[in-house]
């Protein structure tokens, strides 16, 4: 990102070309270069006139410095070229004449407030001064991007600039004041490049030390190796969401402030002890591994849409109640002895994997909700393996081959016997007709086996 304060003598502005927009208005492409950062901004002649007027009034810029108006023939290429040259010199003159004061009008005209540390923070500070309390009291979350966080981190390392204290509204304190109170932060980068500049969002390092009371952090499309310090987050954070960040191991974030992401050398200071909800959906994680040691108190773990085939060391998550592993690469082998790993699980989703059997779910006695939709379960007999789970009342099987067999629903309800009426199957409660048919089928089967049927009246 640009730092005008550090590069006042290494800042240049030019107008490489002028083009006619679809409405036939001449648009001047202005290029601003601060050290090795470049960005473009487009203005028409009348924008220059407005700017000039303010600068003449408030900053004693010479009135005749701007190339004059022309009414007739003002789209003639030769004339445009001459004016382009004139406007370029005008801007060069402004930068050298006003670089000590940098009036707000010029900052905004040249988009310094979008790409430069100081001017971007001035803008953010006055927004937070005016509306920060309102955001904190009314909004659930506040969104910043890597550019803003990088600017804050950089600014903390620098002395206050003489350009900074122009108004108390722009005081950097307001940003830190706000951030130190913020409870929920969303860090999100939408594009690759920042606006029309050469700055890449994901090339910008930042730290999170200023967020002293943060309870929930959501990172979306952020390269986590750019985060150099997490400050006091390990003791304050309760909920963490790292989505679409191309992470291959959870420790990439959980140890992002450590040079070596070696789980064997971690100590209690690395543990995220208050973290209850952890969501690493939509990444490239293939194994859960030992990273769970860093989140021992997690109650909810969401790892949907990764490439997980190995559950690793999940036994340490003794508080885990909700686990979502949908959209991964789990096979029957990956979930062997599941009850020994996640015995207390209440809600489990393993939809869109490659499971063929349900045997390993048969001892998850606390299970209330199970989603194994879109797997490869073929045989209705496999479903029998979970029919005796005492608390199960929500089951998703749709998308499996088994869901296409004749009378599939009725057969499932039959397996659940008396508990069928409490079972919500594929998001639908059984109808009375389904229950009746299932009861008849069951009676027939029992009779066939030569035992005397026991009827229990529906309650």
């Amino acid at each position: 990102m640009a730092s005008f304060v550090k590069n006042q003598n290494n800042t240049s502005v030019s107008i490489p070309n002028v083009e006619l927009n679809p409405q036939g208005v001449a648009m001047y492409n202005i290029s601003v270069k601060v050290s090795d950062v470049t960005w473009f901004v487009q203005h028409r002649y009348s924008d220059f006139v407005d700017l000039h007027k303010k600068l003449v009034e408030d900053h004693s810029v010479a009135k005749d410095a701007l190339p004059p108006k022309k009414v007739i023939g003002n789209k003639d290429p030769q004339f445009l070229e001459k004016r382009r040259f004139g406007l370029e010199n005008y801007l060069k003159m402004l930068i050298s004449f006003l670089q000590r004061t940098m009036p707000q009008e010029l900052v905004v005209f040249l988009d310094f407030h979008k790409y430069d540390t100081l001017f971007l923070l001035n803008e953010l500070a006055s927004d937070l001064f005016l509306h920060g309390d309102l955001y904190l009291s009314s909004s659930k979350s506040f969104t910043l991007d890597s550019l803003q966080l990088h600017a804050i981190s950089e600014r903390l390392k620098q002395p206050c600039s003489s350009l900074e204290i122009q108004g108390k509204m722009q005081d950097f304190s307001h940003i830190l004041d706000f951030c130190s109170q913020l409870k929920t932060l969303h860090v999100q980068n939408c594009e690759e490049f920042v606006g029309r500049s050469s700055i890449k969002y994901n090339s910008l390092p930042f730290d999170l030390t200023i967020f002293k009371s943060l309870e929930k952090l959501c990172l979306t499309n952020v390269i986590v190796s750019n985060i150099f310090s997490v400050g006091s987050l390990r003791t304050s954070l309760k909920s963490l969401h790292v989505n679409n960040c191309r992470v291959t191991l959870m420790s990439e974030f959980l140890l992002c402030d450590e040079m070596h992401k070696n789980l064997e050398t971690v100590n209690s200071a690395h543990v995220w002890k208050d973290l209850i909800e952890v969501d690493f959906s939509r990444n490239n994680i293939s194994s859960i591994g030992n990273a769970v040691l860093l989140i021992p108190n997690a109650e909810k773990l969401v790892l949907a849409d990764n490439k997980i085939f190995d559950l690793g060391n999940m036994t340490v998550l003794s508080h885990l109640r909700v686990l979502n592993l949908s959209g991964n690469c789990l096979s029957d082998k990956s979930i062997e002895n599941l009850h020994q790993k996640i015995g207390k699980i209440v809600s489990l989703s393993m939809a869109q994997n490659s499971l063929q059997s349900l045997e390993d779910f048969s001892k998850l006695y606390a299970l209330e909700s199970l989603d194994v939709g879109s797997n490869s379960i073929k045989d209705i007999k496999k479903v029998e393996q979970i029919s005796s789970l005492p608390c199960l009342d929500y089951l998703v099987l749709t998308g499996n081959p088994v869901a296409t067999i004749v009378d599939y629903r009725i057969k499932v309800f039959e397996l659940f016997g008396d508990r069928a009426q409490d079972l919500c199957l594929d998001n639908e409660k059984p109808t009375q007709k389904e229950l009746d048919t299932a009861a008849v089928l069951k009676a027939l089967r029992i009779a066939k086996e030569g035992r005397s049927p026991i009827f229990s009246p529906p309650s």
Partner: protein
Amino acid sequence: MSAGPYNYEYIFKYIIIGDMGVGKSCLLHQFTDKKFMADCPHTIGVEFGTRIIDVAGQKVKLQIWDTAGQERFRAVTRSYYRGAAGALMVYDITRRSTYNHLSSWLTDTRTLTNPSTVIFLIGNKCDLDSADGSQRDVTYEEAKQFADENGLMFVEASAKTGDNVEEAFLETAKKIYQSIQDGRLDLNAAESGVQHKPPQLGSDFTPNKDPCSC
């Protein structure tokens, strides 16, 4: 908007200065969180803290800059003097050298702040003053005399026990508030370090922030 952390009338900016290891960060921490940090790391550059206090029936938000005591950060920390309404100058009563350096800290403060900045002298670590005075290196009387000669307010405090910590921050605020009342301090001046709470917008204002759905 009447409840809790958003209800205040003024913002005062403070700066905490003094030699390395005198307990500046611990004083700030004790004041903002009412806790003592036993092994507080060296401050890198600057740290920040905030708390709302009550001054003569008015709610005032203090924005406090805690500076690094190490010489190598001096360029960064010096730039924070400007625009401070209150300066807390700290020394360690068990280390004479930190007291001896006060005059140079005071010179810095007087040169870099504005004339209305309230300077408060704090002799920290008074919990280490045992009955026989074995650890004490600077007497109360001596420091008091220094404070009086230079027109500073003064207490001995302990970031560890919390003794006099509140008092130091609150007395400074009272003095600043008094300056505003007397008209000696101009709220509108760019570097006064004091400002009004921003005007509140009506309820029709909706912040353009996304509803976080995750």
